[in-house]
């Protein structure tokens, strides 16, 4: 039996719960030292052709992304972000940069290792 935040799950129930849409973002669990992945849309982040609505990571080889989710990448020399219709963050050698939708801004040139879009 697994106990999480006072809610008892048998293994079978936990599997069912995993399949349900439940947004138990558990600060309490975090306090207990458990890591809880926040409920997010299905991980569908996709590299795609660049357009006004895509997240464009600008470098000598610009890449463009869309749909929600997270992906690990290795993108060298990224110096600008065009957010398009996307909010989220990029992780890189310069740190983690969170961004709002519909903006263009520069970042210190760096290697990007992760992208999250919501």
């Amino acid at each position, binding site marked *: 039996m697994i106990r*999480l*935040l006072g809610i008892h799950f048998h293994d079978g129930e936990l599997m069912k*719960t*995993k*399949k*349900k*849409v*439940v*947004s*138990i*973002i*558990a*600060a*309490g*669990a*975090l306090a207990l*030292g*458990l*890591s*809880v*992945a*926040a*409920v*997010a*849309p*299905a991980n569908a982040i996709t590299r795609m052709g660049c357009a*006004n*609505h895509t997240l464009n990571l600008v470098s000598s080889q610009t890449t463009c992304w869309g749909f*929600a989710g*997270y992906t690990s990448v290795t993108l060298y020399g990224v110096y600008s*972000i*065009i*957010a*398009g*219709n996307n*909010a*989220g*963050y990029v*992780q*890189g*050698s*310069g*740190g*983690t*940069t*969170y*961004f*709002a*939708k*519909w*903006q*263009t*801004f520069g*970042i210190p040139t760096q290697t990007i290792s*992760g992208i*999250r879009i*919501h």
Partner: protein
Amino acid sequence: MTVLVLSGCIAQPSPVPTIPKADDLQLIDSFDQVERPIDAYMPTAREIMRLVDEHEVRMNECLAEQGLGTTFSYPSDEETELFIRTNIRDRVVRSDVWGFFDTKNVNAFGYQRDPATELSSISLPPLPPEAQETCRLEDEVEPLLLTIEAYTLPDGGPTLSVPEETMRQLTEPWRICMRDAGYTYDSPLEPLNEFMPESKPSQKQITTAQADVNCKVETNFVGVAVAVLVAHDNAYIEKNEAALVEMSSMLLGRTGQ
């Protein structure tokens, strides 16, 4: 650490509501008139700042456990809170449904944000390589994403369930108004996308944004859209009440929601 992953299914769309007539509704001609039932379940800036502080503490505990001589910190409270408030404001002034509706700043900044009062990006320092696996952000609740409805709410929230056909019907009066004003856009999100690359708003951008907002007021587009969203919100809240209460309690420490 035990990792519990709670993954979501694809949300089932809500029944398509009847779209009310603009004239039957209160005119919404300013962004600060927009109110929705789901707003009560979205974290406030203060609540997110508290989670930011808690996250900072946990990260530093983790770094100390690793025996690393580094610390982790968010930018200043002022900067962090400004970023949070900008994103909260974006839910209304840069909506996924009606697009741009910043009636306060449109004449000066077009589609862009006022740099004096809004902050649209923020950077956190990198973790040492030794801590990047053991103290990873993506395994935990990410406070700075809690302004986003689709991230925070069960099923991605009510706005995600508005059918495309409903969106199309909602936007038609605005599209016609814009066409009469000399602008051809299929969606209210298009002009936002079009002018995004500009570092400073051109006169064309400002003029377009003014026409955009004027058409939304003239057609009461936002008033009608809010009425549709309110219906979606109420159906969604009824369906997800238990999960919403649990989320509010456990994540935000709220009681008696």
